[in-house]
């Protein structure tokens, strides 16, 4: 019975390396960042690490929400 169900397996990169979609890349100025965590709270894709706020560019889609919401304006979107 089990084999006859179409069961998908969870894996990283199930939808490909979505970082290739990006036109603009978020660049964080660590001098300005005060580690408030707002960027990672709002990243729709959860690609901002919650401990050190590093961004996984293999998967970041470049939406720009983090840069728009950062209260310190520590993130700039730079053309790839």
């Amino acid at each position, binding site marked *: 019975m089990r084999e006859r169900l*179409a*069961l*998908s*397996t*969870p*894996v*990283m*990169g*199930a*939808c*490909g390396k*979505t970082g290739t*979609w990006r036109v603009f890349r978020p660049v964080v100025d660590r001098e300005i960042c005060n580690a408030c*965590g707002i960027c*990672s*709270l*709002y*990243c*729709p*894709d*959860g*690609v901002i*690490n*919650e*401990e050190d706020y590093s961004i*996984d560019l*293999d*998967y970041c*889609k*470049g*939406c*720009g*929400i983090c*840069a*728009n*919401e950062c209260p310190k304006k520590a993130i700039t*979107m730079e053309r790839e």
Partner: protein
Amino acid sequence: MSGLQETEYILKCTSACAGCSTSLILRHVLAAAGPDTVLVIPACCTSVIQGVYPKTSFRIPVYNVAFAASAAVASGMSAAFEAMGKKTNVIAYAGDGGTVDIGIQALSGALERETNFLYICYDNEAYGNTGMQRSGSTPLGARTTTTPEGKGHKKKDLDRIVAAHSIPYMATACSAYPKDLAGKVEKALATKGPAFIHVLAPCPPGWRYPAEKTIEMGKLAVKTGVWALYERMYETVVISGPTKAAMIKPTPIEEYIKPQGRFKGITPETITTIRLDSERMLRRLAAEEEGSC
């Protein structure tokens, strides 16, 4: 939100559009719900963004079901878990089309039968997955592919329909307020019986604004009073903080309407109608909270 990383139940990455509220909402819903959760998902953007068989980016069990069937399937699932003595959370996660239009009778039936589950409607105000056709939840004046001149009908008041079922917990939320959303999900899941959360989900391609403005759009919806955040426990209404603030000092509604391409060409009269309707809704909620109606 420390600790979310261990509780990310969506693996990098989904195929959702950049800046998608639907992904952001689900990320926080699943973090609040924890690993002992099963999702029931009808045809909608969320059934697509999971990935294509045999791979998925969702780390918890998902049951993909026919468009109209989410609440009916969730009912059966909830009954089965109860019979097995399991406490697994059953969450239906459906779009506005799948809720206010095609799934409404299944939802109404499940609420009436007091099914022990949580139904979440994420509302991007159109049939997103099939290319932005109008739904019953599309607001007045909004352009969609089937309302190229702007919708001539008002947004269906789903929340009052749900409220008429007098359920133990219902709430509204918005992707721009993830902590408020997470708190409401926790309360909903702690409730025995049916719980319902309606989440406004700004959608960059559908609403036609740049992807980085998703949070801004959600905040503006609340600050202008177009979208109200509240909870309802049977007949008791509790208005949430951001909407309380908007009631005291609302942001002009044009600040929400003007940046969205879907409202291009909207007339001042239509904007006035939307404003008056929002004000009426807020007055009604305030009166309900006071217990005077």
